[in-house]
């Protein structure tokens, strides 16, 4: 296995291996609930809570979990925290809970979380696993808020429910509908691919020049 430093574990999930934009994991919530920034934030917060708690628990209990039942055990851990997040959100943020609906319960099957348990927490200590989970959680939040921002600005003409363009703005209704989610994700990936390619070309150019 490749050895990494603590800071690398932390940074990796945020950008270099961003769960949504690079690894393409957890796309279901990323597409479904990002029609406003507020929903994106609530979803990110719930996911962040679940991934951090699960990673800590899985990495601290890893020696007690026989490998034959590890996936079931991870799912059990994740499902427990999702249920807790569901109840806490319903109690303290009922409006967001109603808006997110079934997608809170569906965090259980977010393969980004299960992926981190299997790929990282099951093999690393608690401290590194927590760093990795926080990094991944932040990466997920960045991706969701980015999508939520684009969709809310274009689809309802506001940001965090604060009206930006005044009453004469004609909203692009499609951006808050499911199709808008795919369009937004597509354009974000296009932009990222474009900059990535330009960076590579530049690096190749400088390497050529120096040689």
């Amino acid at each position, binding site marked *: 296995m490749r050895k990494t430093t603590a800071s690398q574990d932390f940074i990796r999930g945020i950008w270099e291996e961003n769960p949504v934009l690079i690894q393409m994991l957890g796309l279901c919530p990323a597409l479904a609930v990002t029609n406003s920034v507020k929903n994106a934030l609530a979803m990110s917060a719930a996911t962040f809570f679940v991934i951090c708690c699960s990673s800590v628990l899985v990495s601290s209990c890893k020696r*007690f*979990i*026989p*490998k*034959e*039942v590890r996936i*079931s*055990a991870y799912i*059990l*851990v994740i*499902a*427990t925290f999702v*249920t*807790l997040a569901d*109840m*806490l959100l*319903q*109690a*303290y943020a*009922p409006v967001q809970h109603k808006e997110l*609906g*079934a997608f809170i319960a569906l965090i259980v099957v977010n393969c980004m979380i299960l992926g981190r348990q299997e790929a990282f927490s099951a093999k690393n200590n608690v401290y590194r696993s927590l760093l990795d989970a926080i990094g991944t959680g932040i990466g997920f939040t960045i991706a969701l808020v980015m999508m939520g921002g684009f969709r809310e600005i274009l689809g309802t003409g506001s940001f965090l429910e604060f009206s930006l363009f005044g009453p004469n703005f004609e909203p692009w209704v499609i951006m808050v*509908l*499911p199709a808008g989610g795919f369009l937004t994700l597509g354009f974000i990936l296009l932009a990222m691919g474009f900059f990535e390619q330009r960076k590579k070309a530049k690096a190749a150019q400088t390497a050529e020049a120096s040689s």
Partner: protein
Amino acid sequence: MNEETTRKDAGTPETPEVPETKSASTFRLVATLAIAGALAGLLIVMVNQHTKPIIDEYKAEQLRIAVYEVLPGVERYNTYYLVNDSLSLTLPEGAKESEFKRVYVGYDTSNEIRGVAISRGESGFQDVVMVIFGFDPSTGKLTGMKVLDSKETPGLGDKIFKDQVFVDQFFAGPETPLVGVKIGAGKGNPNEIDTITGATISSKVVIDIINHGLEEWGPILEKGVPQESTQ
């Protein structure tokens, strides 16, 4: 013999991954999951005990707001429970509140009954749709409708509470029983409700809930609402 060698072969690639253990016994596998499950259950129960009162209080508050919304012009309301086919303000001793059907009877400032609100759920396109609606028993006209809970398709079915034109029809005092018609296909009867294009099932469910609710409660309410003894 042959079988044994193949089994060994299939087993070998697994070993380098986790070198320290040989495969665990069935008992250990079951025990691990059982203990983990029990701990998970315990945790959930503990949190549930903490959050349930907060959630219930919020729901009660939402219901209170909804009752006043569907019964415009009402000053206060009483909850009547259906006990042995008649309306009662109090429950039989030792009975659980949640087991009884109920209506909310609204009064105006001069203590006259202005409307009755009924909440009711029926399965919609995805899941149960909960609706509260108010009507005036003296005229039989609806006074309002509000969707309390629905998981209808976002963008289509959720128009039953997001489409103001559709919702406003219920506040315009239509006569009952309601009839759902496609937009433009109505004959101008006072009991017609225009359904939402693309969400016919969801809009029909709302209409059905109201009609069934009236069928169920109509005969009971006709017997009259008992006087409040406390007032």
